[in-house]
């Protein structure tokens, strides 16, 4: 079995244990009641989304530095997994916000910057889909990934820099100890699952890029256009 499958299984096990503890063992939150248990899903998603975007940034630097296809494939895989987690994060946030804050959405700096972060990295995926020349696509999407990454520290510090409705950073001091353990277990589970998805996605991207390089004059996208009769 490939190494990432073991990581994925470990992640699945940790997520299961963490959420079992979060749902059935940990106490309800004093003000939010059982709704507060979405903490164990939302906070790990946020942490891991930012870490995965950091991987995308490192991959973009590696891609520009070396020009190797492996780094380019990693840009593709990390950005895609990051976008999925980012959209999941926004959705979980809305589900949590309605019963607690009273609204699904508000233009609070933390929420707004998180939405900007999603749109920025979706831009990387759109760019990659548009460019058909492999070398040009690798450079352009790496440069754009580095620009998009600016949004990541801004999201992280948004609750510190500006007045928000979203709560500021939590720490083990602000979270009661029976809630800290399931949070940590679920966070590591989420991290390992993300590593699994990134590794799987990387293999797919690498295989696709390798095939393109064998026929650089006829990239798959251009070939598809000709097949559909759309090419002039």
């Amino acid at each position, binding site marked *: 079995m490939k190494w990432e499958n073991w990581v994925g299984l470990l992640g699945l096990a940790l997520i299961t244990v963490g959420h079992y503890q979060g749902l059935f063992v940990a*106490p*309800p*939150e*004093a*003000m*939010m*009641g*059982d709704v*507060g248990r979405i*903490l164990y899903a939302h906070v790990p998603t946020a942490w891991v989304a930012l870490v995965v975007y950091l991987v995308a940034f490192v991959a973009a*630097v590696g891609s*520009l*530095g070396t*020009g190797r296809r492996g780094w380019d494939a990693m840009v593709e895989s990390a950005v895609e997994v990051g976008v999925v987690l980012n959209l999941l994060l926004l959705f979980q946030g809305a589900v949590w916000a309605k*019963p*607690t*804050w*009273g*609204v699904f959405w*508000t*233009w*609070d*700096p933390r929420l707004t910057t998180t939405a900007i972060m999603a749109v920025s990295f979706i831009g990387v995926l759109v760019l990659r889909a548009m460019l058909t*020349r*492999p*070398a*040009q696509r*690798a*450079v352009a999407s*790496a*440069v754009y990934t*580095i*620009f998009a*990454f*600016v949004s990541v*520290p*801004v999201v992280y*510090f948004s609750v510190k*820099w*500006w*007045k*928000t*409705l979203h*709560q*500021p*950073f*939590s*720490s083990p001091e*602000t*979270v*009661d100890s*029976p*809630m800290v353990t399931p949070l940590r277990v679920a966070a590591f589970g989420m991290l390992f699952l993300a590593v699994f998805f990134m590794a799987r996605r990387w293999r797919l991207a690498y295989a696709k890029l390798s095939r393109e*390089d*064998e*026929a*650089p*004059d006829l990239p798959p996208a251009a070939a598809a256009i000709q097949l559909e009769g759309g090419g002039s």
Partner: protein
Amino acid sequence: MSEPTPSSPAATPPGGLSARQRRTFLVGSVLVALLALGGIASVDMSENLVYFWEPRELYAAGDDAYGAQIRLGGLVKEGTLQWDEGAQELKMVVTDGQADVTVHATGAPPQMLREGIGVVVEGTMTKEGVFKTDRLMVKHSNEYRAPQEGVETKELYKTVEGLE
């Protein structure tokens, strides 16, 4: 790997950039990103990027505050929360410790609303000195606590605590 075309140097893939050009892009884009981040972090955007005003800022705006769509944030002052279930009307005083604003809200308030908690309300300040809103949001702090001993879970879901 395909053979490079005769006109291009061996290090450059078809349609690609040389290693030097790529590294120029790398240094350039990281510099631009750092400058952008440094700009966002260091420039004081508190004038332009304001999610809500606190009561003293509302009063400081003077006449400009009247009739404009405003977000007001502060704490629900102890002993001021009144909920009229029949009329679905809520009255409270929002304070920042220095100034107070009387707020009238319509619609069912979120379950977490209670005295002393942070709120953000969207609406307008009237000439009568009452802030009217139909969008009331309750702020949760970064503290996640277990309920105190003896508190039934059901008790946590009471709407507008302490007013029944």
